[in-house]
């Protein structure tokens, strides 16, 4: 295909709408900063001279053995054994974002595939896959996780698999519904009348039209996965200490009741978690507004109608 494209219409309009959404823009900025922090966690560690697991018994703890509050040397203070909270937060961001994104991408891939197959073929295929989704949704997540950890021991890959296993169903249902209506459109019939096979129709005709819901729901799945991971780590089922994770940091603060004295131990990881999930949710909403034609339908139609030469 020639690369010369006149695509202004859809992509440009989407970007323009997205940039006009102030809340979405703020969230996007926050996420970008967070990503930079996560990627540059090693750099932050080098700059401050504090590694994530190093304990600073002399400077990081008061003479009585209590953590020190935020200061010039320890931006966000230290924890109960004298580790730099700021550096640990940056490394925690790395884990949280990595798990959040990888899990949602994997879950999206599974959800899209199963939703596409179920919606397109319908009939008994749809019935079987639909029951599978119901089954997955009815398993108690934490109980399942507890027993898995008991058997295999906690690990990153186990957390990831569990998060993926329990989150693809939402995407699957959304995609299935969209495919049900898309496959009745005339362009699918037109493709069939030219002799196109199932595979061709699913991937060249239907899949490109699912772009908007896939982007929106994948974005919305990221915060859920992050919370999920934090919950697991908080319960000691996820990331193994001393590796830093937001959920684990919160757990440590809670375990020793040290937060009664050192408020920053709860505030900063909690805030990081809150702002991250909030940002992803707001970004998801902004993306929906910008991408989803159903939400801007009447306005766009009116704007187009007089201009659209028919």
């Amino acid at each position, binding site marked *: *295909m*020639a690369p*010369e*494209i*006149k*695509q202004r*219409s*859809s992509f440009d*309009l989407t970007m*323009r709408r997205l940039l006009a959404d102030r809340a979405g823009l703020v969230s996007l900025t926050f996420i970008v900063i967070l990503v930079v922090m996560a990627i540059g966690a090693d750099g932050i560690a080098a700059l401050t001279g504090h590694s994530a697991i190093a304990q600073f018994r002399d400077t990081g703890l008061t003479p009585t053995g209590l953590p020190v509050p935020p200061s010039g040397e320890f931006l966000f203070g230290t924890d109960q054994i004298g580790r730099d909270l700021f550096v640990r937060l940056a490394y925690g961001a790395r884990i949280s974002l990595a798990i959040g994104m990888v899990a949602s991408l994997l879950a999206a891939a599974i959800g899209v595939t199963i939703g596409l197959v179920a919606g397109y073929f319908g009939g008994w295929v749809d019935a079987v896959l639909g029951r599978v989704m119901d089954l997955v949704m009815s398993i108690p997540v934490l109980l399942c996780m507890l027993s898995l950890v008991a058997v295999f021991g906690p690990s990153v890959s186990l957390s990831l698999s569990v998060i993926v296993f329990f989150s693809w169903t939402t995407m699957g249902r959304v995609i299935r519904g969209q495919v049900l209506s898309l496959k009745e*459109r*005339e*362009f699918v*019939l*037109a*493709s*069939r*009348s*030219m*002799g*196109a096979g199932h595979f*061709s129709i699913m991937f*060249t*005709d239907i899949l*490109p*039209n699912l*772009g908007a819901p896939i982007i929106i729901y994948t974005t919305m799945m990221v915060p859920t996965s992050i919370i999920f991971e934090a919950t697991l780590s908080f319960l000691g089922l996820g990331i193994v200490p001393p590796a830093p994770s937001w959920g684990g940091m919160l757990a440590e603060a809670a375990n020793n009741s040290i937060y009664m004295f050192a408020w920053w131990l709860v505030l900063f990881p909690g805030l990081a978690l809150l702002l991250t999930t909030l940002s992803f949710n707001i970004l998801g909403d902004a993306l929906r507004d910008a991408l989803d034609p159903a939400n801007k339908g009447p306005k766009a139609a*009116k*704007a187009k*109608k*007089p*201009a*659209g*030469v*028919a």
Partner: protein
Amino acid sequence: MTVLSVRNLNIDIPTGDGDVHAARDVSFEVGAQELFGIAGESGSGKSVLSQAIMGLLPSARIRGEILFEGRDLLKLSPRQMQHLRGDRIAMISQDPLSSLHPFYTIGQQIIEAIRTHRKVSSRDALAEAIDVLGRVGIYEPDKRVHDYPHQFSGGQRQRVMIAMAIALRPALLIADEPTTALDVTVQAQIIALLNEMRRELGTAIIMVTHDLELLSSVADHAMVMYAGNRMEFGPGDAVLKAPSHPYTLGLLQSSPNQETKGALHSIAGQPPSLLIEQKGCAFADRCPAVMDVCRNQRPPIRQFEDGTHSLCWLEEKASKALTPAQATPEQTYTPDTSDIVVSASDVRLTYGGRSLFLRSSGVEVLKGVSLELARGTTLGIVGESGCGKSTLARIIAGLLPPSAGDVAIEGKSIIDLDRAEWVETRKRVQMVFQDPFGSLNPKRRVGSIIGDPFRIQNVAKGDDRRNRVRELMELVGLNPEHYNRFPSEFSGGQRQRIGIARALALNPSIIIFDEPVSALDVSIQAQILNLIAKLQRDLGLSYLFISHDLAVVRHVSAQIIVMKDGQVVERGATQELYNDPQHPYTRELLAAADPNYRNVGGAPGSMISEGTVHGA
């Protein structure tokens, strides 16, 4: 007495792309009891105008005056407008299905409308609702008043909408495309009903429609709009019989009727974008009588003896000034009719044989249809929605297996083929779909869409494929440079050309057109019909042409089949069928499709009584 007087109305609607200039210096007056018609193609600003009168354009910048019963509606507060709406000014919209609330009975909805504006008891309001339902021709209104909207047919729903609108005896009723969503035979009944209601209740009616001929039979005064301008204004029959503006003339000549043969006169080009501020005449680019002055200066309003006004630089009426475009007599092309390319025999289709609710008797969609199509000719299939004509098309195209019967393409049955044979058949039969918006994948480029048949059938690759696509685009009158555009960047007519190019890609011998022009404006429709006819002559194609519009079918086909309820009620050569229809249903269709026929042969009275039968 003047009910509504619109003076120098300008409407600008701000949008993301800039201001849409939806109306420019539009003036008109509507008297009591008058039926005033506003005609125009999509995007002409006719619907915006009616919304402006109703005060439903909050974000628009409106200049000018809208005087209703002596008050300027533009100066009223939203609250005052709210009191006026429904009470003094009522509106009927295009789609009677979506304008009725599915959750409430029609009685409740009419009563609510009445009690919003009048202080009456619900018992009185109910009596009133029953009375008004009876007036609009709903049979047994005292029983039907407690029914829900889904229990009524499309035509009846529109009657209910009219009942709701006239329940409060408004001074003005705005009907925005009141019949577009309805079948042709029902259309005539609704128009007749509106006509009757205005006489009975003294309501002035503004009827907005794209159908100029429909207006001709009923409108006292008519206004033709184009790109936000009032192109022509005058007494209904004068505008229709002797149009004074070249645009009106062009529109009238574009619609196929009894006289048209061969290539239709079409208005070249596309309507202008309303985002651009017009300097001269909006129609200049498409006008056959264009002069230099037209492009630079806004035309004056000329007034003629018969009461028509025209926004044009021409000094006399277009119907006189322009030599009536003689339809080029077609070289009579006589194909060999003995070579049958499609034959269907006793095709039946039953749905729901094994339904979830264990209903033993399925719905019979097709009850034994047979047809034959000779090579190089066109067979027209006419019928209303739900008569099974589209289903039949899909069966012949091989997209749907019939429950019984046989379809043979070029002598070879297409029933129970294996996959490879079926794919092979695709090279011989192709389809063009009704909806130029739905039948093209919005996320793919035009080049890939037209190249799809090559990709799927694996016949041409790379540069070869690209060149063939470009040739096809040229063949159907598209600019090959638009190869990389998305369907949304094309207008409806151009999209239909894309659909036709795609159907031609594999050199089929048979093309099935399923309502190819029903979604298009008249002037564009003529362009597409001409293209279809030209391709048939040049490539020797055989067509199955399906439409609800008898005038269009009659124009393109040599043979016609009339379908009703899954059966063929009449078939024959076009001219014979037109001159001497045998089946009453054919006569009804003819009457609905052609105002001349209606005036001469059809009895409008019989159509109203028909409505009461439907109501039963």
